[in-house]
């Protein structure tokens, strides 16, 4: 966490950029700006430059930030604002440690003892290693998980961390080989794209097929994909595309799962979308926690650049790196981040389809949505339409984690129930664990009790229960776990990830987390906070943050109301009405 603030860090007074600072910055950025690299310096690539400095120095020295501001011809304030916004940048004058270990303490990793592990590791590893409790890093199937100097380690134990730091265990421990372009092409890959480029298909029929297939945005919002393409295509050009692989919703790791295996399938879907909508340039926004995916995608894009898949040139493609900010999964915050700014959601209208990236009409799609496009178009959508259970249609990639025997990404029919998902796809519950509760859609989708394990899981089916499926990240709790503790952890997560732009979210998540730490919850106050957050927050983060808290009040009142009277963390006695909290 950046402790530094402007008024501490910028000393001595009156520092101006020196020739030495300019040279140091130029040397660091030389490789990036070299011919064949990204070319001349651009304001929108500020975050990329900050990454170069952070990677090389282990922190962001003020002198280099000032030199960067000068080189980009922007104010130092803008550079500080951006640098201090992202978790993965350390705006301090001294390098905090030789290596940073980020231990996930959010979803399944919390159930697996992530927080205890973090405390233990800090003592064990000493001051030269910085141990940070981190939000979900998307390795939930191998909980507890950590990032060691940016590389992922699953099934973390102190021994394994020591081995990784000593280099006797090499990271990342890959569990899948990405399919290369030749292999993908050998099984018919890119053929559809080529046919599109050669005029054998028209974009109207492609969009119509997508509409018939019922494919919806799999990042969580569920907007019908075909309709979105049609809307953006009708906007004046130039049109841009932004691919959302920020995948920060706790418990979600499906995008990573597919990228590690078939990067070209995703890229073909992306390029078909670009062709159908008439896209000039594509920006792929990948979360910083996915270093392995970054290498895989960079290699796949390099392979693609050397081929002549289309008769015409491909759209310009830029791979961008997030910097540790959950809110950047919100589409307009992601767009701000791609523009090199803080990840602050925009107020709508206008919608990004009309005024998006660089104020151009923008098609924003999640990675997995595009991943399914080639297959759907090849069989006319049959593979999707003919799937589904309990009256629902389609397939969903559930990221299942927590107390099940075989966690992982499970491609299952839409509408499957939790009980079916656990029994048929996850080998049942772990020995000795009995189902108690589950989060159907990560941190924001609420939390349901075991008695509602037979509800179909899909878009639109969970709203009557105060929940939603979102990115289909299912975290399973057993009777050894507590719904209240889980809800509290999720609220702390939201408080840490709020961008701070609007009052109800910035103060509401922070205050809710404090109030929820009390043994007995102040129900009227929490309900008021929830109403303000849901009704008045700018973006989905603040609007959905109260779901877990409202679900606990509704389904698990015994956990937060019945025990002996206590005081809240502020030391005030809990109100009498809070003592009788029931749903």
């Amino acid at each position, binding site marked *: 966490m950046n402790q530094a603030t402007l*008024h501490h860090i910028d000393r001595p007074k009156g520092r101006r950029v020196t020739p030495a600072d300019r040279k140091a910055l130029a040397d660091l950025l030389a490789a990036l700006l070299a011919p064949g690299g990204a070319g001349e310096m651009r304001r929108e690539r500020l975050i990329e430059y900050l990454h170069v400095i952070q990677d090389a120095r282990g922190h962001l020295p003020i002198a280099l930030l000032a030199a960067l501001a000068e080189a980009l011809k922007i*104010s*130092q304030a803008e550079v500080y604002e951006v640098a*201090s916004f992202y978790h993965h940048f350390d705006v301090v004058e001294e390098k905090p440690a030789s290596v940073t270990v980020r231990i996930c303490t959010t979803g399944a990793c919390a159930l697996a003892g992530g927080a205890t592990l973090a405390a233990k590791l800090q003592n064990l590893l000493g001051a030269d290693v910085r141990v940070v409790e981190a939000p979900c890093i998307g390795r939930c199937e191998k909980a507890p998980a950590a990032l060691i100097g940016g590389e992922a380690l699953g099934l973390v134990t102190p021994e394994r961390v020591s081995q990784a730091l000593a280099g006797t265990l090499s990271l990342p421990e890959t569990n899948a080989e990405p399919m290369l372009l030749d292999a993908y092409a050998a099984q018919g890959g890119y053929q559809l794209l080529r046919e599109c480029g050669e005029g054998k298909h028209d974009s109207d029929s492609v969009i119509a097929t997508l509409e018939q297939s019922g494919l919806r945005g799999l990042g969580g919002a569920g907007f019908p994909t075909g309709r979105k393409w049609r809307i953006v295509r009708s906007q004046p050009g130039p049109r841009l595309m932004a691919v959302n692989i920020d995948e920060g919703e706790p418990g979600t790791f499906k995008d990573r799962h597919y990228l590690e295996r078939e990067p070209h399938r995703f890229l073909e879907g992306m390029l078909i979308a670009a062709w159908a909508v008439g896209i000039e340039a594509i920006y792929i926004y990948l979360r910083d926690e996915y270093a392995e995916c970054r290498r895989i995608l960079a290699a796949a894009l390099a392979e693609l650049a050397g081929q002549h898949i289309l008769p015409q040139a491909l759209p310009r493609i830029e791979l961008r790196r997030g910097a540790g900010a959950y809110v950047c999964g919100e589409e307009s915050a992601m767009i701000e981040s791609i523009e090199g700014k803080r990840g602050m959601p925009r107020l709508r209208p206008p919608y990004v389809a009309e005024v998006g990236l660089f104020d151009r009409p923008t098609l924003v799609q999640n990675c997995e949505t595009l991943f399914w496009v080639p297959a759907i178009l090849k069989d006319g959508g049959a593979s999707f339409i003919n799937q589904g259970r309990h009256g629902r249609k389609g397939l969903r990639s559930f990221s299942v984690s927590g107390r099940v025997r075989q966690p992982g990404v499970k491609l299952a029919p839409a509408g499957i129930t939790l009980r079916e998902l656990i029994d048929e796809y996850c080998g049942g519950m772990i020995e000795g664990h009995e189902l108690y509760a589950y989060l159907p859609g990560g941190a924001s989708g609420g939390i349901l009790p075991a008695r509602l394990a037979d509800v179909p899981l899909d878009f639109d089916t969970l709203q009557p229960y105060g929940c939603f499926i979102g990115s289909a990240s299912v975290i399973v709790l057993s009777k050894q776990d507590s719904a209240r503790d889980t809800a509290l952890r999720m609220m702390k997560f939201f408080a840490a990830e709020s961008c*701070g732009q609007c*009052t*109800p979210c910035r103060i509401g998540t922070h205050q809710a987390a404090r109030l929820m730490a009390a043994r007995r919850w102040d129900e009227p106050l929490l309900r008021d906070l929830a*109403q303000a957050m849901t009704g008045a927050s*700018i973006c989905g983060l603040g609007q959905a943050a109260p779901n877990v808290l409202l679900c606990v009040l509704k389904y698990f009142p015994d956990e937060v109301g019945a025990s002996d009277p206590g005081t809240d963390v502020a030391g005030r006695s809990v109100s009498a009405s809070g003592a009788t909290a029931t749903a």
Partner: protein
Amino acid sequence: MTVLGAAQSAGIFIPTLCNHEKLKPFGGCRLCMVEAEAGGRTSLVSACKYPVQQDLVVRTRSGQIDNIRKVLTEQLLAFAPDSEVLLELAREYQADKDRFAKEPSFCILCGLCVRYCAEVKQRHGVGFIDRGASREIGFIPEIAATECWDCKECFPLCPTSALQAAFVLVKSLTPSPS
């Protein structure tokens, strides 16, 4: 034209703490939330940014809106106790000024100073630092040393009497004891 602008020109009061005629809409304080009904659908929107349109029906007061404004006022009062503007809102919306534990910073992050400096003065002497609950304003010493001391045009804009801005400015220009 925005809903807020239309309401103001018609003499209808909608509270706001972060809006200013010389600045772009910010939509941060959220006190201007109103119910907007269009095409048979009602949604809560921020009046300072939402555009007026044909047949749009706007309700500026309702049980829901009043409760949201009450809670927002209570939240902000924890950070800026006894701010005159906030106490006035508290009277209007029956807000309890002591509902939340005090965390005085005397800054409610409306961003008027930051945005005025950037948009009107184009000096960027003060900015937002960090994010979430750790978000705060900070002056850039190099710029503040030459620009701010004789300007301070942002101070009168501050809804909490610029106490925090003055404090942060002085601190940014004071050498550390070390």
